[in-house]
């Protein structure tokens, strides 16, 4: 049991309660009379999430104030946080580029951006990898499988 369990329990409890009392009543209409409400299973599931999160919080209640907390390492390292940020940024910008300019610039940015983010600085791989991938994808999807990415 760790502090991360305690914190994730709180986050999930809030998530469950917000869904249960705000989002589900607001977003899901009541069904016709005599029919089981469409919100039945979503309500049961978020109710379950809220209850189980509460159990998670209670089980880890003592730990945050305990002696060993300071020694507990975060389950997510700084380099992983950076990786998440890079992935969201590069894929997100690629999506925008796709909407604005199509598949070619988006795919090029996706591959080159990720390679640069991971420390690749050599010109040859930075050119050869996206070119090979794009030609390969073109041959596979447009020519061999007969579909298109547009």
């Amino acid at each position, binding site marked *: 049991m760790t502090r991360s*369990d305690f914190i994730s329990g709180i986050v999930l409890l809030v998530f469950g309660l917000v869904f249960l009392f705000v989002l589900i009543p607001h*977003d899901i209409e009541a069904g016709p009379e005599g029919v*089981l409400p469409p919100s039945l299973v979503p309500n049961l599931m*978020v109710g379950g999430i809220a209850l189980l999160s509460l159990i998670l919080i209670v089980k880890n209640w003592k730990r945050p104030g305990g002696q060993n907390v300071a020694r507990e390492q975060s389950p997510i390292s700084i380099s*992983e946080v950076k990786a998440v940020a890079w992935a969201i940024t590069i894929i997100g910008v690629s999506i925008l580029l796709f909407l604005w300019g199509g598949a070619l610039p988006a795919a090029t940015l996706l591959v080159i951006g990720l390679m640069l983010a991971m420390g690749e600085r050599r010109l040859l791989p930075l050119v050869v990898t996206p070119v090979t991938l794009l030609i390969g994808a073109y041959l596979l999807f447009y020519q061999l499988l007969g579909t298109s990415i547009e």
Partner: protein
Amino acid sequence: MENLIGGFQDILTPVNIAWIALGVTIGYVVGVLPGLGKGTAVAVAIPLTYYISPLAAIALLIGIAKGSTAGSAVSAILLNAPGEPSSAPTALDGYPLARQGKAHKALKMGLFASVIGDFISTLVLIVLAAPLAEYALLIGPVELCAILLFSLTFIGGLSGSSLSKGMIAACFGILCSTVGLEIETAIPRLTFGVLELQDGLPLIPVAIGMLATAEMIVQMGNHKSIDQQTSLLDEGNASREDKIVLWEDWKYCIPAIGRGTAIGTVVGILPGLGASVGSFLSYGATKKASKRPELFGKGAIEGVAAAESADNAVVPASLVPLFAIGIPGSVIAAILIAAFIIHGVTPGPMMFVEQPRLVYGIYAAMICASLLLLCIGYFGLRFFALVTKVPMRMIIPVVLFLCAIGAFLQGDGIFGVMVMLAFGVIGFLAKKLEFSFVTFLIGFVIGPSFELTFRQSIALLNRDITQIIDRPIAIAFIVLTVLTIWRIAVANGKKNQLAQKDSEIPKT
């Protein structure tokens, strides 16, 4: 038997054999790469199958799953970096063997054990699934709802570090499956005005996000240490005896492979336990039964055989619940459901009634894949060993590019890529915080069946729970569910107490 011969007739065409061979090769290459598992490989490959026949498509995906399971041993042995967690016990003895200059011997034994475990487990699937499916056809919605509830509890309890976290993952999976138009009233649920969500969250982008994208993000954060291990790879100058598997090695390994295959098959049939449990159990059992346990961890070849046979036996066996009752027992089975649905096949007992020829074609494909695994693995060993040297900064962008294409093709265009990214981040958090993403995915896949049978059960029981007394199978599974929760909660409680005691002991 007639059906099986028919199945072989269908699969033994140059085109289908080529698809299986391609699948095994792709799977092997992906499995060899540290951190890339069979789930990632199969999820990313699904878009390639849209335009081929259902049998060839399933054969390709099964080839990938089998190839990547066997391939993950290569990086475990050469780099001490398992392709996936289930190959971790392989590294315990495989890596020391490689350091002693016996890498080729370990790689070959790993391959032989993989093929034997996989082949026997495939035969078990063929023998067991059809009779079980006949029983499954006799059960109604109330019983099926109870079985689904039991399966989810069992999977949630055993596939993660804590029962509560496993059950949260299951609930979250079912919650996500309710997004879209409700089946009875066509009222939109949790769409928040987004038109694309009315059809629900697309399965393939969700699976690619949770498995492949999340794993790639994790690897992005740790790629430097993996590349460092790769750079240390040295094949050394080994003698011929150190490169081949001798009769003396077989004497130690045959019992280990038999034990590993049996353990892996049983673990595979039980939903949710997964290949890691199988390979660790098999490794532990072989060490316990060994006459030279002191060698384990230092280069015992039977350790490699035990882990690999169990690891590979899990994959075919995990398809037993999928084929017999339509419940995915593993992440591979969950992804295969998506492939089945894309190709117009509903996995479960009705497959044996409606499309027996296809089912036996799949069996034949699985047997062919086992044999091709041996050939491709054996003759391609040198090439696959070279793949481990490709740096992660080249691999990750390529895999993420393929992920994006897969999500795009099956996820309503660019919306699929957005879903993939969102679930990639959720999957990353789930992995790091130890919420079982396997349970989430299985909950997401069986969510619609669960909701449907739950609603049908309420109607059949006239909204009166006491009427369940007339349904002994449903009662049995509800009792099993309660017992599972109780048993796992007690076991976890003891584990936590021990862990707390350990942490309280002052370190000197």
